Structure formats: C-alpha cells, structure tokens
C-alpha cells in the first residue's frame, strides 16, 4: 500500500503485520490468529485478511503535502488565438522518427515550426502552458530551434526546466537560467561572480556585459588576464568579437605576445578586422610589398612576389609559419598576409583602381586563384560589401558556376555581406544562368520569404529540371528550401505544375508523377504557411 498513507501505528497495523507474516510462512508453519473452532486455518487467515484489506483501504487518508513549487512568473504576453494554438499542437505532434519513408505530398510540419515560432515571437504571443512539454522536447532534439522556442516558451518553460532534468538545456541556454547573471549595475556581485564563478558562469557574465558595455567587459577581463588558464583566455578573448571597437586595440596588441599560440592567433584575427589598427597597417605593408601592377606588359597585370620567409614579426602578428601538408609555404604566408590586410589599402597601392578594376586585372604566373581566395576571406572577415560585390562578379558569367577561385561556400559567405535585396537578386541571376544544381548553399543565405524575382527563378528552374526528365529527389534540398522560403502567394502560380504531365520519351520512368507529387507538397506547404500566418494575426 504505497499510495496514500495509512494511519500510523495502531493495534490494527500490528494485526495486519501479523497476518502478512503468517501468510508468508504458511499456516502449516504458523498458526492463524483468531482461529474459530471448526474452521480451516487458511480460510480463517483469508477471512481476516479480507476484512483488514478493506478496512485499511477504506481508512486511507491523504498525505501531508510536500513543499509546493514557487509559482511560475506571470507571462504578460497575450494568449495565442484559438486557431494558432491548435496549429501549434499539430506542428508539435508531427515528430520525426515514427513513420519515416517517403513523404508523398504531405507537408513536413516539423520544418514549419521555426517559421511558426518566428512569427509568434514577432507578434509577441504567449505559449499555451499545456504545449510547453512538447515544445521543450522539440527544442531538446533540435538545437537550432532552441533560441526561438525558448523565447516563445517564456518564463514558465524555465520554471518547468528546473523540475525536469531532461530540459536542463533550457536553463543553460537562457539568460536568467541556472547561471544567473546578476544585475550588471551591482559592481560587487559582478566582481565576485567574475572571480569565484564557474567557467560557464563567467563566460555568460562576460558576454552579457560585452553586449551592453563593451569597454567594461574588456576592463573586467584585463583585471584577471594574467592569471587565467590558456584555454579560458581563448574563450574569453573570443567573447570580445561582439562589439569590437578601436579602444580594444592596445589590449589585443598585448595579447599578441601571449604564451598560447591560439590566443595569439585569435588576437591577431580580431585586430585584422579593425582596419585602423597598427597590426592591420603592418600587414598592409607586408602584403603590399608582395603585390604590384606591372605596366611593362601589353596590358597592366598584377605580379605577385610572395614572402621569402616568415619572420618573428609576422609570427607575432598571427601568421602561422608552418604550412599544412601539400601547400607551398610561400603561398601559405601570402594568403595569410592578404587576408589580414585592410581591403581599403589596395586601391591607393594599385593605382587608385576600384575593387572591380583590381579584380579584373590579369594576374601573372597562376597567382590569381590564391590572391582572389585571400581577398574573399578578407572581404568576409571585414564585412566589405564593395569588395564582395567585385569578387562575386556578375552571376551569369560561366565561371560563376565552375569550381573557380572562389568556392560556393566562400561565395555564400561573400553574399552574406551584401544587403538582402542585392543578395537575392544575385542568386536569382545565378539560378537563371546556371540552374539549381549548385544553388543550395547560395539559397540558404537569402532572406525569407524569397523575393518575387528569386522565387520565380527557382520555380522556373524546377520546371526546366522536370521538363528535362530528371527525378525530383535530385532537387530535394532545393524543394525543401522552397517549401519553407517561397512567398506563400506564389502557390497560385504553382497550381498548374501539380498536374501529372504526359510522359516524354526520354524522361525517367514515372518521374512525372513524382514531380506532380513534389509540386503538390510545395503548394500545400505554401497554403499552410499562408494559413499559419493568418492565424497568428490577432485577433
């Protein structure tokens, strides 16, 4: 009887104990208590036990209550509209794992959850409490969902996470979780936490301060810098990446002399992202000595003379002396110098040319790929749209799709430095010229929902791929993206594509049916997204 508590020790309780003992040993070994004349011992025992069992059950009383959890903080946000709450339950019920296999024409609901959460958060709705466990479970399985899911889940989710170890991640991820960041105005508490806290708490503290008062964070870090362990120094230094400012330079310069090579490299990387820093100027000097315009040729040409050695000064400034296997060390050093050189310094050095003109210059002796790759890395690191644009070039040139100097991954990073309109325009141009096969990474950096021009380019390219007779799953990545990123109003234009076409002679067998299914799923998903959006528009 482990449920409700029985009344404490009473004569009845000891009588019951006695019955259990007799039952356990058997009436052959122990006499049954209270045996009436002419009665079989086992029957008498069972009679007595039946009376006791019912008596004990009937006499059950509630237990004293344990400490109750402190109430969760109020969520001041308005509740979800009814239809949106139902939609959320549906999205959360569609867990991956079960079922599996081909999706057919049904939308992948779990993939719509990020968008749904973003919309709900933008509109500032509170999560329905009963949905929190499913929401936390979903966020537990998918780290990419966590920030939006936890924002939406609100204070009650943190309250729940303290009660269920499965959801501990929510406390780590959220500010104000277990690693409570104190009120930053409370200088004493800040200092004490910084000096006595656990590593994770200190990183959280430093990041929190850096986000609000960059200089104060740097000063806090400097106060204990000399006594920190090397791997901790590296992590702390990394948190200065946010809010990098000119005032950080002298501290970072000192870190260039650090005992740890990784710390030196990080300090150098941060300094090189500050175009006005002394390190940047030193790098510009070194790189500038390696690249020049040769006017003696028929057309002006860039000539490259990579460094002959990696001296102590270069190493101090973060240049890694030892080249990876299979790379010439001189070109390895050159790449690092150019990458850390402020892009703005090239124009004065190369005859006042614009980035476009510089990129267009021929490069002597096969140095072009090396040089352009290094500039690309610099453009990404320094977030320089002018140079990014120049290095990306026109999307329609044949080289853009080839395995040229700038890889697709690099190009996606370059695109990320441009503003949203320019980005999607470039990718639309790329897809129009080269089709979809190389476009997945590039589409991934475009703003959602896709601009009309980009959406049209993708749909046209899918249509062309279908007419070419290939199977839709060759494009499943792009299809998946389109389901999530196409503007829902495109659904109307897509309707015509959902019909199963006549099978062409050279087409893969059955492809037409699969394509119509894929387009059906696309249309269904777009409709669903439109409905989702409507449902979240209050009231």
């Amino acid at each position, binding site marked *: 009887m*482990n449920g409700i508590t029985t009344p404490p020790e009473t004569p009845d309780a000891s009588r019951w104990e006695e019955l259990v003992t007799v039952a356990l040993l058997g009436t052959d070994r122990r006499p049954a208590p209270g045996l009436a004349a002419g009665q079989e011992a086992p029957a008498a025992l*069972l009679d007595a036990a*039946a009376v006791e069992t019912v008596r004990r059950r009937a006499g059950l009383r509630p237990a*004293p209550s344990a400490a109750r959890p402190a109430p969760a903080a109020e969520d001041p946000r308005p509740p979800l509209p009814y239809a949106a709450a139902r939609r959320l339950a*549906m999205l959360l019920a569609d867990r991956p794992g079960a079922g599996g296999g081909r999706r057919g*024409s*049904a939308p992948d609901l779990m993939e719509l959850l990020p968008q749904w959460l973003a919309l709900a958060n933008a509109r500032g709705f509170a999560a329905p409490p009963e949905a929190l466990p499913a929401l936390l479970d979903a966020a537990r399985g998918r780290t990419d969902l966590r920030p939006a899911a936890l924002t939406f889940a609100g204070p009650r989710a943190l309250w729940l996470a303290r009660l269920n170890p499965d959801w501990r991640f929510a406390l780590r991820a959220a500010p104000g979780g277990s690693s409570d960041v104190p009120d930053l105005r409370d200088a004493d508490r800040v200092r004490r936490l910084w000096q006595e806290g656990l590593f994770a708490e200190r990183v959280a503290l430093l990041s929190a301060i850096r986000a609000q008062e960059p200089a104060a964070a740097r000063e806090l870090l400097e106060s204990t810098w000399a006594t920190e362990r090397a791997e901790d120094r590296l992590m702390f230094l990394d948190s200065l990446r946010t809010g990098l400012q000119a005032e950080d330079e002298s501290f970072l310069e000192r870190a260039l002399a650090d005992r740890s090579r990784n710390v030196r490299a990080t300090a150098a990387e941060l300094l090189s992202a500050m175009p006005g820093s002394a390190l940047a100027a030193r790098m510009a000097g070194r790189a500038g000595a390696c690249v020049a315009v040769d006017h003696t040729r028929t057309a002006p040409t860039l000539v490259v003379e990579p460094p002959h050695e990696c001296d102590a000064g270069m190493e101090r400034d973060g240049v890694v002396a030892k080249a990876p296997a299979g790379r010439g060390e001189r070109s390895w050093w050159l790449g690092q110098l150019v990458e850390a050189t402020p892009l703005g310094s090239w124009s004065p050095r190369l005859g006042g040319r614009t980035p476009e003109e510089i990129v267009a210059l021929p490069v002597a002796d096969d140095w072009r790929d090396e040089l352009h790759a290094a500039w690309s890395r610099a453009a990404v690191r320094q977030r320089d749209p002018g140079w990014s644009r120049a290095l990306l070039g026109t999307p329609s040139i044949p080289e853009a799709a080839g395995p040229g100097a700038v890889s697709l991954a690099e190009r996606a990073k370059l695109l990320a430095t441009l503003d949203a309109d320019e980005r999607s325009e470039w990718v639309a141009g790329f897809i129009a010229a080269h089709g979809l096969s190389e476009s997945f990474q590039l589409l991934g950096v475009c703003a959602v929902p896709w601009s009309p021009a980009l959406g049209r380019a993708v749909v046209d390219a899918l249509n062309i791929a279908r007419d070419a007779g290939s199977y839709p799953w060759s494009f499943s990545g792009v299809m998946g993206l389109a389901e999530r990123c196409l503007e829902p109003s495109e659904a109307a234009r897509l309707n015509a594509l959902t019909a199963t076409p006549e099978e062409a002679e050279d087409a893969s067998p059955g492809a037409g049916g699969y394509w119509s299914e894929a387009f059906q799923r696309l249309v269904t998903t777009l409709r669903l997204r439109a409905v989702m959006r409507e449902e979240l528009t209050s009231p």
Partner: protein
Amino acid sequence: MAGPTFGTMTQQGVRWTAEQVLALAPDAASRKAGSKLGAAGPWSEAGSSDEGTVWGLCKGSGSKPYQTVIDVADAGGPAYKCSCPSRKFPCKHALGLLLLWAGDEALVPRAQAPDWAEQWLAGRRRRAEARRTTTGAASGAASGDPEAARRRAERRAERITAGAAELEQRLADLLRGGLAGAEQAGYGLWEETAARMVDAQAPGLAARVRELGAVPGSGADWPVRLLEECALLHLLDQGWLRRERLPDGLAATVRSRVGLPGSPDGPPVRDRWLVLAQYDTVDARLTTRRIWLYGAESGRTALLLSYGAAGRAPELALPVGLAFEAEVSAYPGAGQLRSTLGERFTAPAPAAIRPPGVTPAEAAARYGEALRDDPWLDSVPVTLARVIPAPDGDSWQLADADGDLALPLTPSARSRPGLWRLVALSGGAPVTVFGECGHRGFTPLTAWPEREGEAVGLC
C-alpha cells in the same frame, strides 16, 4: 439530389480540434498515417455541409481516388465510409479528411454533397429510421425462449460455483504452504488456474487470477499486495458462493465482478453529458476503452466501456471537453458506475460545463465510502478543485491549495507525459483535476486551469 432535410440531423456547429479528431484513431499507426493525409495535397473536391457531413476524394496509389465521407453530426457518433480496402476503422483517409476539415475551413468549404456521398447518407438515415421504429417490438422477441434461457443461466451458475470452489482450494493450498513459495512458482501456476476459470465461464475470476501472477515480481512489499489480492479474491469467491444471502445490490455487484454479463437495465437518464476523459488499456487479447462522462443536470458520473479485439480500436470515441445531450442507462450493481449510451440527441460541442470539485481529503473519504458498496473497487472517479501539483521525492502529489493535505500520484501516472502537461498547466498555481482516486494513489486524467480555459487531456 437536394440537400438533406431529414429531421434526425442536428446543426453541427463548431469544427473539432485536431486532438479530438486524432482521438478517433484506432491505433498509433493510423494516427500517424491520418496526420500525413491531413493536408490539402492528396485531396480534391472536399466539402462539408451544415448538417455535419464531410466528404472528399483522396488520391491513393491507384488511378481512381478513394471516396471518403463522414457523418460527424450523427447522434450515434461519427460514421465513416471510404472506398479504400483498409480494415482499420476509421481508416487513415477518414482521419485525414477530418483533420483537413478541422484545420482549415477554406480547404473544406460549405458545398452541396456529391451524389455518391448523398446516397450513402440517405441509406444510413433510412436504416436509422427503420431501427427506431422496430426497437420497441424487437426487444421482446429477441430474448427467445425464456425457459431455455433460464436453464442456460443455471448451467453457467453451476459451472462458476464449481470454479469458485476450486479456486478457494487453490488459495487455501497457497496459504498453507506460504506466499514465499509463490515467488518461485511464477506465472505458470496462475496461468493454469486462470485457464480453469475461463473454462468455468467466470472471466472476472480469471482476470483477477492472472493478475496475481504479476504481483511477486512487482517490487518491494509484494507479499502485502499478494495477500491483499488473494484475500479480495477469496472474498469474491465467498460472495458468489453465498450470493443468495446477499442484499440485491451487492449480489449484483458480485455477479458483475465474477464476470456474468449484466444488461443496462437502469432507467435512461437524459442529460447534457460532458466527456471527462477517454483512455485505452491494451493487453494481448483486448483493447478496453474507458470514457468518463459527467451529467450537467443530474450531477452523475458515468463510465462507458467499449472493447476492440486485439489491434482494433473500440468503436465508441468521444472528444474530451465537449458535451452532448444523450440518454445513459446504468448497469446493475451497488456502487457500479458502468453505464451504456442510449440515444444521442446532439453532436458533441464545446461547453462551459466543469464538474464541481472536492478537496484531497474529501476524495480519499469518497473512495472509502465507495468500498462499502463494492469492496473490490480499485478507485473512484473524482474531480479535485484547487490543487497544486508538487514534486515529492521521486514522485508527485496533488496538494490542496487551501490546506496541508495531498494525494500522491499512482506509480504509473508518474511516468506518463501527461504529468508534465499537468505541471505546465498549473505553473505552481491551483488547477482543477479530474482523475481516478484509489488505494494506489491518484491518476490524473483531465485538467482545467483555474481561470477560464479548455480541458487539457492528460492520458
């Protein structure tokens, strides 16, 4: 064909929620398959009528789409028809169509039912009319020759009596040798005895005997539990053997506990019934569905049982939190809440009804009192008002918000996902909880927030 004008239909009102639709699914696989079909993709020509009919064409693997039609508002519960070959009921197409209908009004617009749907509906209504007119006449005729029936019942009672006597002998042997020996004997002994009880046509005794086999493996204190269960079984045997001398109500309870089929002969009670909870228990042979109802006018709580053969869902399904008007008749037996659903007058619709609640202390007392009428009772249905779920070591309890007493949760309730929905709903504040309260603790089944808000299913 013109729109339906028959008088049996009722205005269908609000669409269901996805959860309510999924509660109709016969099993988890159907739920999954149905969810996948709950999107516009495979559907065409879907529509619904004000009378509560939903129809659509679902593209399957073949060239001809399946024709699916559902009568949601039928007073006898939703009825389905689908041209697919599936033996599941409802099939995934019916579930998918209902989800579509529940999810997006634009995809299943108001329209005129197509001929194929209309034909099915008309047929159903004709049959319903015919049943209505013949029930009165048939009930007398169906029982056949009363003399033969009496002889059959007598023969069965004799068999049960022999079975109960045999069981008494086995229990006596067990206690003579001691329960300690039962640990080694294992399931075999009990399985064999259970089979003997099946032969004796006493399924109630057989089920109890089968459960005895699991007790020695159930952790600490198993001798206590085994003695309790043996003693209650003995009590039931003795009750049967002396049923002539028991008061009528208790005798009926003994008959139903032994496993004799009763018939719901209580007077039909017409009421607005709120669906408090619905849950299934599954074993190798049978799926048992329990549905708890609360009558808004009568204040009565009724239990509907419905069975499905292994792997098939019981037919009756009612969405939790909705209320409908119907007649309910009780089965015989003192303290028995089992009832049967008679005629339904309205389709389930959202309602603001909430059952009135009691404190944990009153709930425990209620269980104790119920044992007077039925000492074999494991739990009673209770609604707790203003309780706060609180962690208590490895377990949880429902603590009285205005007192210092609490009901612990049953061990099985602690490991269910519904526990966390309950905790989340409460957030440390009082909630109203309906569940089953018994000697193992409290099993929460449905909860309501303190302020207004819908019922949240926990099972």
